[in-house]
């Protein structure tokens, strides 16, 4: 059973269906955030519906772009034989 699910997910033919499922779950999570109680909110952003979605997306983009910038421009990434001369 596990094998079949994994093969289904990996098959490029099903990527359209999976994409649709992915978008559906994004919408569901985003909408659900408008309908929950926020009794425990401490900070202002905790009270904004959809904050998690926004912050998650921004964090992800920021992490990728800043890291790659530091890696390429900041000289962190080097050839694999950097230490073997």
């Amino acid at each position: 059973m596990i094998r079949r699910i994994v093969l289904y997910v990996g098959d490029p033919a099903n990527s359209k269906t999976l994409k649709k499922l992915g978008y559906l779950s994004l919408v569901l999570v985003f909408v659900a955030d408008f309908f929950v109680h926020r009794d425990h909110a401490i900070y202002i952003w905790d009270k904004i519906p959809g904050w998690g979605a926004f912050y998650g997306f921004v964090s992800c983009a920021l992490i990728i772009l800043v890291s790659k910038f530091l890696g390429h421009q900041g000289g962190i990434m080097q050839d694999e034989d950097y230490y073997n001369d």
Partner: protein
Amino acid sequence: MTDWFHPSLLFIFGAAGIPFLSGKVRQGYLMVIPLLAVACVYSMTPGTYWTTTFLGTELTFGAADKLSIVFGWVFTIMSFIGIVYALHVEDRGQHVAAFLYVGGSIGVTFAGDFFTLFIFWELMAFASVYLVFARRVKASIDAGYRYILVHLFGGVCLLGGIVLHYMSTKSIGVGPLDQDGSLGFYLILVGVLFNAAVPPFHAWLTDAYPEGTVTGSVFMSAFTTKTAVYVLVRVFPGTELLVWMGTIMALYGVVYAVLENDSRRLLAYHIISQVGYMVAGVGIGTDLSLNGSVSHAFAHIFYKGLLFMGAGAVIMMTGRSKLTELGGVYRTMPLTLVLYMIGGFAISAFPLFSGFVTKSMVVSGAAHDHRPLVALLLTMASAGTFLHTGLKLPYYMFFGKDSGLEAKEPPTNMLIAMGMAAFLCIGIGVLPGPLYALLPFPVDYHPYTGDHVTSALGILLFTGLGFFMLLKKLDPEPTISIDTDWVYRKGSRVFMWLAKVPVAGTDTVVGDIYKTIICRFTLSFSQFLARVFDLRGIDGMVNGVAAFFIELAGNLRGTASGLVRNYAATMLVGGVVILGYYLFAHLMSL
């Protein structure tokens, strides 16, 4: 003696039996010892046991309270999972090293004084380095030497701090230190931060863990840093510096994980990121955040072990560790993929997985302690965690472009070990109650509130959206990343250059001066001594004495005529002289 037994003794003395066993007997033996240790912890009640006086100092081997017992639980359970994963390994040295390593870790956990703690601390370093050496390739040997040197340096810092602390307080007990800013305080802190892999003292971890054996690195991922977290919770709660070190650490690991191409090195950077949460929790120092640190360490050991087991299985079955060379193995390793993903969901803190109920305690701890920036940055790091461990690594390792590798599922024992860890990752997430009951402080925390679940899912799923939108940017590149190990990897060359050029050069010059000036002077002076003093002085004196005796003997020879009457006359004269002397003396005394 009977009401408490030290679990470390099982491992340390148990290790001695391993070389004499083989086959099924050894496999059974390897599993029984950790199970006995789990039973030890199960039967433990808080108290102080096994104290002894050594050189006038009281040593405590069994300081058991809720904090040490919860770490005792996780260390013993993980040792069982780790050893099941390694059952197929024939190299007995690795099993011995793993047992000693676990024994050291548990020894630190129950040490009641700094001296005992230090001894077990060093045992960990020396036992674990064998798990790197045992891979027996040049890269591993090199990394192993760097690993042990860094740990020795950290150990010396720790020992120096302990000595200073003892000299100023006359106390050696392990407990919260006075935050007096003394040198001893900072030396102990730095010694522990080395093992907790807090930047800039962290590079040994990402250097050595990916070079260890497939099974050895599973042990390493679990014990060294988490033992250090235990000591931080015990000794440094509420140290403000740690809040920021931990927060930076959580993001630091994430940034490097973006750039990393080696699968296990990527996971190693996420150890640093995750331990960052624990360090920050210690720094915040409230009951909630300390509980968060402890519970996160507990959950972390299982999911990180699981991730290392999954990546290790792929490395073992394909012989490759670089993401640029992997891809498409989902077809032949579906079970490994699913088990790995459970670890990936747990570390990413998906609801119903272990990370969700533990990591959020630290973040809430920061929020409740009025540290909004810390809470925001730690949340950002958790987006990065899912990005790499849950998306990037599995995508490029199992899916992505097909590398055409013909891999199989790993041996059954490895799958069973991964299954056990996966079971715990889900079990803790679904039913956090038993773990919460073990924590050092009473728990009044409910992770499954509506807004927490939806906002966590929002963060994670929209991170996923960002991942697929920026996928092209994330394609792994065949590079390595420069980290603080540069200081001693390239810096050692500066040292060698210094040794070669200025130091050795000066040595040559000094040698020349010595040869030309000092040697010549010494030689001519000794020649003077030889010619004048020795020849004329000493030899002359000896010769003179000899010549005197020769002459004396020649003169005496004339008296020895051989005629009896001469001898008799001489004796007679002698006798008269002696008699005369006594007579004269007698007369004078009258």
